């Protein structure tokens, strides 16, 4: 079995592809720097990430695949699912070898899998756009905690910067411990040195703006008043609004 080691970055993955083509050997497994070798494997090639290599591979892919499909590859990468890098590797390999675009070859296992995973990540992105709930802090900044199962937060930035263009906000991923802060111009990635007080998702009362509590309770009362007693269907509610999002939503607390 041929095994490559790389640094588990997207650029690293593209460089792996570059090395595979130059060496004319295609690995069956991709390991991180210090994962143990699987049984029966020959010695592993160590890939050194280099940006000129990765850019060349990406340019080649962009020639072969449409922009939407390249976006899907990014989505799959952000899923952070185990094995998704190997899936991407197989997909890119096939795409580069094929004479025409393989993007619609849904009878192929890998093509279908990429589409499925990209769909899941895209769904998570949509969930974030739906269920993010801002709380206003005393200084006027709006704060929202999130903890998506896939790393979909970067994908939502075009939406949030459009929608909330005239207010300062911070959306913080409590699972991955990073977030985006928007300062009325651009959204910048931030990591906080001390974020323990943010991890439970609630701003301290002292930090909140005066009316924040009132608006939260108004919203809760509103969604309750909107419920029709004869049509209670909690299963449908959970289907559309998975329970994992409830902890940060005022209407459910």
């Amino acid at each position, binding site marked *: 079995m041929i095994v490559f080691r790389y640094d588990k970055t997207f650029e690293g993955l593209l460089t792996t592809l570059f090395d595979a083509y130059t060496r004319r050997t295609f690995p069956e497994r991709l390991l991180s720097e210090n994962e143990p070798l699987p049984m029966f494997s020959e010695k592993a090639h160590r890939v050194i990430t280099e940006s000129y290599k990765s850019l060349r591979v990406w340019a080649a892919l962009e020639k072969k695949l449409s922009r939407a499909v390249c976006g899907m590859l990014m989505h799959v990468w952000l899923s952070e699912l185990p094995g998704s890098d190997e899936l991407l590797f197989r997909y890119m390999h096939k795409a580069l070898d094929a004479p025409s675009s393989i993007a619609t070859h849904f009878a192929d296992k890998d093509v279908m899998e990429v589409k499925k995973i990209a769909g899941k990540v895209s769904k998570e992105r949509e969930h974030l756009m*739906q269920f993010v709930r801002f709380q206003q802090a005393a200084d006027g900044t709006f704060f929202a905690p999130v903890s998506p199962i896939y790393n979909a937060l970067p994908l939502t930035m075009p939406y949030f910067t459009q929608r909330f263009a005239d207010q300062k906000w911070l959306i913080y991923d409590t699972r991955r411990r990073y977030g985006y802060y928007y300062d009325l111009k651009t959204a910048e990635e931030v990591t906080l040195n001390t974020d323990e007080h943010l991890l439970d998702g609630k701003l301290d009362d002292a930090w909140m703006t005066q009316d924040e509590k009132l608006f939260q309770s*108004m919203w809760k009362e509103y*969604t309750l008043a909107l419920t029709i007693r004869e049509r209670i269907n909690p299963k449908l509610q959970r289907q559309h609004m998975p329970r994992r999002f409830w902890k940060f939503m005022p209407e459910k607390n």
Partner: protein
Amino acid sequence: MNEQVQEKLKVLAASAKYDVSCASSGITRRNRPGSVGSAEGWGICHSFTENGRCVSLLKIMLTNHCIYDCAYCINRRSNDIKRATLTVGELIDLTLEFYRRNYIEGLFLSSGVVRDPDYTMERMVRVVKDLRTEHRYNGYIHMKSIPGASREWVDEAGRYADRLSVNIEIPKEQNLKFLAPEKNYQSIFQPMFYIQQGVSASNEERKRFRYAPRFVPAGQSTQMIVGATNESDNDILRLSSALYQRSSMKRVYYSGYIPINTGDARLPALKQPPLVRENRLYQADWLMRFYGFQASEIVDDAFPNLDLEIDPKLSWALRHPELFPIDINKAEQSLLLRVPGIGVKSALLIVASRHHGRITASTLAKMGVVMKKARYFITCGELPILTVNELHPDCIRRALAGKTNPKKEADRRQLSIPFPD
């Protein structure tokens, strides 16, 4: 903002909740510097109530005082309910504050009729106009147009709202007059016609001047109550299909009748709202809008009501076994869409992937085709040939309908749990 507003919000939300329309789709508007918000073309649902219904817009009435006395409506003047009225300022504040917290996609403004239709329209228009001009609000606005409103106010509303709607409520005029003595079809279809005219005029204008103002860019919608009167599904679907002929009509909503005003002899006493029938009507509606079906194919005089046990497409397919089986590897997309178990997405996938090679049954399943249904209606060169023609349609019907699953039974029992106030 104070507790008083909160109380009003509760009362007016409860008054607006029987209007089922909720879509925030149909218009994409990017944020312009200095304005608040944006609109996404596909619409975003920001929350779901315990009904599983989405809350996309702040659906609320300006007031629930009403001079009309419609039998099916919770806000009719003879009902003894809490009444409230929001001021323009209060409503605008609420909308903007909720919007800034990502609770809502926009405003859905409705109102009881006070004094006369035009007076009511004037007050509603003031809210949407202030939002758009003074607060430079860029988000979605859906406004109800009051039946009997004059052209002047419909035109004014259309300049600021993204979608306007006039509810038909009852699919036959004599029944409407019986239940809602103050309304008639003239008062409902006239505003609808004004909206259609405004939309066409603005589209013409925009062909000549690129930045001509838009009029109700997300079109209009309407709603019909199902099960309060004796119309058949044939009547309902024929009316919807006629409405969809107008380019500005984007959605017709069906609302299963909920006995709100018990004791009114004009209305049937139902134990449960006709939820299954409502669902079947929506399925039929989807067939008309996305699957290329005509209303006359789904229901007709000989078959006036939808089958409650199986979905309308399957029902249609079982009545037309002569058209099947369809060859997955050759049939056109419009034919694929007619196969039960194949939806719009899977039909697109099938057509897109065909030129790479033959499609087999196992790939179909992976593409999301419901093989449980589809296998009786397709061939792909390798399925055992037991299609609808070898088996009798009745036999397939029995195989696919009427399976009572114990889990669902439990859920139905849950419906009767009284909801805490």
